């Protein structure tokens, strides 16, 4: 049995810190895509600046690409709070 990918726990913690209670899965032939699994109705919030800032932070955990799962059934039932994406300059 392979050990869990430590990047997933760190990415999940980051989402939680930002108020996104979604799930992170690893995709791609080299395991270099962070795939965010969110309910359909919340995906639009990650388009634009919010998504760019989140992608930058997740790439900092060792992923090469950061992407949203487009499966309509994926992420159903996840409960999300308000997004709290901060600008890089806001970080302490």
């Amino acid at each position: 049995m392979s050990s869990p990918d430590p990047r997933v726990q760190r990415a999940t913690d980051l989402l939680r810190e930002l108020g996104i209670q979604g799930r992170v899965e690893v995709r791609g032939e080299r395991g270099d895509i962070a795939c965010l699994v969110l309910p359909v109705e919340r995906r639009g919030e990650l388009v634009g600046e919010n998504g760019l800032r989140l992608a930058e932070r997740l790439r900092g955990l060792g992923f090469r690409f950061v992407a949203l799962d487009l499966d309509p059934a994926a992420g159903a039932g996840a409960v999300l709070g308000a997004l709290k994406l901060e600008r890089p300059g806001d970080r302490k």
Partner: protein
Amino acid sequence: MVSTPQERTGNLQAKRQRLIELLREYGSVLIGYSGGVDSVLLARVAVDALGAQNVLAVTGKSESLASWMEDTAREVAETHGIPWLEVETRELDDPRYAANPSNRCYFCKSELWDRLGEVAAERGLRVIADGCNADDVGDHRPGAVAGAQRGVRSPLLEAGLNKAELRAWSRELGLPTWDQPAAPCLASRLPYGIAVTPERLRQIERAELALRRLGFRDFRVRHHEDTARLEMHSVEMAEAVRQSGEIHREVISAGFDTVVLDLEGYRRGSLNQDLSPTQLVQLGSVQ
């Protein structure tokens, strides 16, 4: 130093004149013609400068050529009086190409220019030219080495014309390609190291064709084996999320298990971003 509008106009006219002079020096020319902005403009200007009897635009046809590019190439040639020929190329039969190394384009262009060289010799055309332009300098372009080794000329580049200037000129000439997004071959959607196969190229083509039918225009379907990673232009991202159900259904039916939308959108050359300096072959460095 900032140039005045008059200086810019004069500079542009000088570049256009330089291109026409170069073509006249050639006398006759065979143009590697993909149906993209650059090669279409070059072919049209060459016909004006040399007469149709001294120009042949040739498209290399293989599984890596998207059907919509082939259609554009043919239609523009027919509409604008450009003599056109399609020649089959067999780059997928070359294991060095199919293995998809970072210099994959070198093997593809070697095959293309060899085939086009045969046609030029048969037809008595003196020069072979491609559509590289001034903005291509500095890009990762191993294919340019194959052209340089075979004496292929790049008159748009030699005249100093950049992409914006080529688009503006195309618009003036009524060419439908003037605002066409960049359209490299389908193999460019595969990360280096994932073998180029006819089946994978068909998956990519089918998925991209479906997205075009849904109204999207500037995007790439990156092939990560089971996963399709969509890179959409920033202006099309919100619409992609709105149509995620349709997109998911269509891309899955093209043969993928998972469909994901890259949060950073379309980046030209995104699969080149991790190449080391020794792997990068830049057009400006080709002798």
